[in-house]
């Protein structure tokens, strides 16, 4: 894809984040969508493309009263929205539609109008993982960690520092769920969930949603907000079974999606002012730093522990507080994208001064899928 041909012109989260017991999941989609449409100064009838995950495009189109000419129901977990941005940019460039609405919402805490996730006993996961006691992401996503630590020489203290540093960012964010400062000792003494991870190294469980509106860069200058251009994109998938990853030392899907986006953007790692790496659990930023090529995996734990990603550090990472401290409704990728857009607009609560390039990297499932979007505010 060509660089900077498509821009984000509308971006918003649900009016509330956290515990929202008065809205069903589809209404959370609508709340985010209406906020994004208002942010872009558009009418619902201006939308001719719809992308969403878990819910289907037809559910969202019907609920909002839109009859689109392009839809994308890619649903590969929490990074689905990165893939939607990539697909929408291609569709807009190809002339399949002009103005795309991407929505996410999840009643992850209140569980209103949300289908429970289930694993059929005759699926491969149901036959070869479920019988061994996996039960939700905390029991699955950390399975690679001990091997990763051994291979790369990562310590428990370094993995605790991921949570500590992100709490420092969250403290600057009025909408963050958890703001009180924490220490490495707090993390290492918090309740055990799935060794080696304790509760402060696991994502929050909240309600919320978000929506983005994309259009061609040529039209973007006529919108009320500063356009945020799509500079580079990448995507991939590996396996729905965490036990069947090619290696626990890195993620194949990360290693495809990240470099694709950097190549398309035509930038080097030193050009990156702001970075989001989907942190469902504390090891993910380390995998991301390594697999996206910022540094060797061996350096990633030390890099975070030494404060390079904290406020004022040389590589600001997960500046909204991340899934660990900001919010995590179940498919957090949309909130990472929202923070990248805020940083590129210059309106983030913990704004990185003068940031011009933001890399936003997502994961889906347990390393099952990946999507990377690189944004810029300069064309």
């Amino acid at each position, binding site marked *: 894809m060509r660089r900077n041909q498509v821009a984000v012109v509308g971006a918003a989260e649900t009016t509330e984040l956290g515990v929202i017991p008065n809205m069903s999941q589809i209404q959370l989609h609508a709340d985010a969508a209406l906020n994004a449409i208002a942010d872009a100064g558009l009418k619902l009838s201006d939308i001719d493309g719809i992308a969403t995950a878990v819910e289907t495009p037809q559910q969202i189109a019907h609920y909002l009263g839109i009859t689109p000419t392009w839809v994308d129901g890619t649903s590969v977990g929490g990074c689905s929205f990165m893939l939607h941005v990539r697909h929408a940019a291609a569709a807009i460039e190809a002339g399949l539609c002009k103005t795309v609405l991407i929505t996410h919402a999840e009643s992850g805490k209140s569980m209103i109008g949300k289908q429970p996730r289930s*694993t*059929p*006993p*005759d699926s*491969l996961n*149901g*036959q*070869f*993982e*479920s*019988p*061994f*006691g*996996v*039960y*939700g992401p*905390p*029991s*699955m996503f*950390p*399975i*690679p*960690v*001990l*091997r*990763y630590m*051994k291979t790369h020489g990562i310590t428990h203290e370094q993995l605790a520092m991921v949570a500590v540093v992100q709490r420092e960012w969250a403290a600057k964010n009025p909408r963050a769920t958890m703001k009180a400062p924490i220490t490495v000792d707090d993390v290492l003494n918090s*309740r*055990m*969930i*799935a*060794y*080696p*991870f304790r509760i402060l190294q696991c994502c929050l469980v909240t309600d919320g949603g978000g929506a983005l509106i994309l259009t061609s860069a040529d039209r973007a200058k006529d919108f009320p907000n500063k356009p945020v251009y799509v500079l580079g994109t990448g995507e991939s998938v590996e396996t729905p*079974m965490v*036990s*069947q990853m090619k290696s*626990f030392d890195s993620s194949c899907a990360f290693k495809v999606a990240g470099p694709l986006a950097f190549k398309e953007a035509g930038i080097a790692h030193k050009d990156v002012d702001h970075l989001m790496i989907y942190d469902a659990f504390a090891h993910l930023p380390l995998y991301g730093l390594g697999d996206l090529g910022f540094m060797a995996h061996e350096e990633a734990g030390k890099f975070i522990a030494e404060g390079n990603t904290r406020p004022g550090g040389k590589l600001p990472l997960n500046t909204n507080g991340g899934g660990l401290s900001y919010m995590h409704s179940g498919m957090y990728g949309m909130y990472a994208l929202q923070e990248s857009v805020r940083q590129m607009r210059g309106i983030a609560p913990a704004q990185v001064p003068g940031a011009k390039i933001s890399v936003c990297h997502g994961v889906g499932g347990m390393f099952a899928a990946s999507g990377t979007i690189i944004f810029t505010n300069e064309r």
Partner: protein
Amino acid sequence: MAEPARAKPKPTPETQHFWDGTRAGELRLQRCDACANVYFPPRPFCPACASREVSVLKASGKGKLYSYVINHRPAAPGFTPPYAIAVVELDEGPRMMSNIVDCPQTPEALELDMKLEIAFEKLDDAITLPLFRPSKG
């Protein structure tokens, strides 16, 4: 009321040979006749070269501990926490999820790369699970 039972696999035509194997006390993998790739989970073609000419082989049942978590909460039905969910690297190459029995479920006892051997656990007349225990040899 009976205790909730652990999730039970339901074989498909492509995986039946595996579950017939565990019931007979064998860990069965597949090998590609064309490129010799040994692979898991079961499917009637080679995921490396796409050949449909594949054979079932009886694996040694030996392997080593590749990685694990010790799950505390929430516990799956039929499990008493804390319990380890492990990934075992078989001597033949493929890895599979399993549990480690006859071993304390602690970081001290569960050492990465420790040698393991198969320990079949019968759930019912149809399903026997492939679990592992620390190798005696």
